[in-house]
């Protein structure tokens, strides 16, 4: 019966897994095309030279990180209202992906800053608020890892996920609120705008990064689901063994 149950569950889960797998394969040529656009198609920027091409990966990473933290907040509100484990898993997965992407934003920003500003790091408003944002969501993940009572850990993390999201608009508008070294937005309303080929390359990079996020997110959620189920099964097995003795 156990084997039948396992087979039935595997079969029912196969179509989303197959769709996500296909997305993963489709991403490979898109990534190659993205690199072609960034390195060969987009024109060289006049003042910064080739270092400016870091922009095509740095900004999409930041936008996806914002999206992740936004989803953490929405899923956390939904979790506190419904106490559904699905919302909690979505929040956990997005927090982890958001931290990973923010880490890369900080690293690429630092590598970009060195040739342009002459320093790897400066306590500029945008950089500092990005670092604070990173610390908030690393704390979120630590809270999840170290909580002895899972339900309580999920509740506290949900509150942190909601409060932490306040950091996203502060980070986004930091270049307008304070005088900073970091450039203001070049895409979006009120921005200085990008040249046609540069804008196309940027939007394509954003699309690739979004698809990558859509590939990673379900995989991360499945991993959390399996970890939760394993924990439950281990508990059940221990109970069965204890009952048998």
């Amino acid at each position: 019966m156990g084997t039948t149950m396992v087979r039935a569950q595997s079969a029912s889960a196969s179509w989303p897994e197959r769709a996500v797998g296909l997305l993963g394969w489709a991403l490979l040529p898109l990534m190659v095309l993205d690199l072609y656009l960034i390195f060969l198609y987009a024109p060289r920027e006049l003042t910064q030279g080739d270092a400016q091409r870091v922009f095509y990966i740095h900004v999409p990473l930041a936008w996806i990180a914002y999206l992740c933290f936004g989803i953490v907040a929405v899923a956390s509100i939904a979790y506190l209202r419904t106490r559904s484990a699905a919302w909690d898993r979505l929040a956990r997965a997005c927090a982890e992906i958001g931290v990973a992407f923010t880490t890369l934003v900080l690293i690429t920003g630092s590598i970009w800053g060195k040739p342009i500003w002459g320093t790897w790091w400066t306590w500029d408003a945008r950089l500092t608020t990005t670092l604070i944002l990173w610390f908030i969501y690393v704390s979120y993940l630590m809270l999840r890892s170290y909580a002895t009572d899972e339900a309580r850990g999920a509740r506290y993390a949900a509150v942190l996920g909601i409060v932490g999201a306040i950091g996203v608009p502060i980070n986004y508008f930091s270049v307008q609120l304070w005088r900073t070294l970091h450039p203001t937005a070049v895409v979006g309303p009120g921005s200085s705008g990008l040249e046609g080929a540069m804008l196309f390359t940027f939007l394509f990079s954003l699309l690739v990064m979004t698809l990558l996020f859509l590939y990673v997110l379900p995989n991360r959620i499945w991993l959390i689901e399996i970890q939760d189920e394993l924990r439950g099964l281990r508990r059940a097995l221990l109970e069965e063994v204890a009952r048998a003795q």
Partner: protein
Amino acid sequence: MPNNLGFLFAAFAVVWVALFGYVVLLSGQLRQLRQELRALREAVERARGRETG
């Protein structure tokens, strides 16, 4: 105008190696835990079967 190609390649190398590593790590963990889950489900079913049978 500076070319700064070293910085450019460093930034892209870090990002793609990190993202590729994360995806590989995730897939590996998923495969391993799915096997563990299958084995554990069968063990629980066997334990329950022994108790009822």
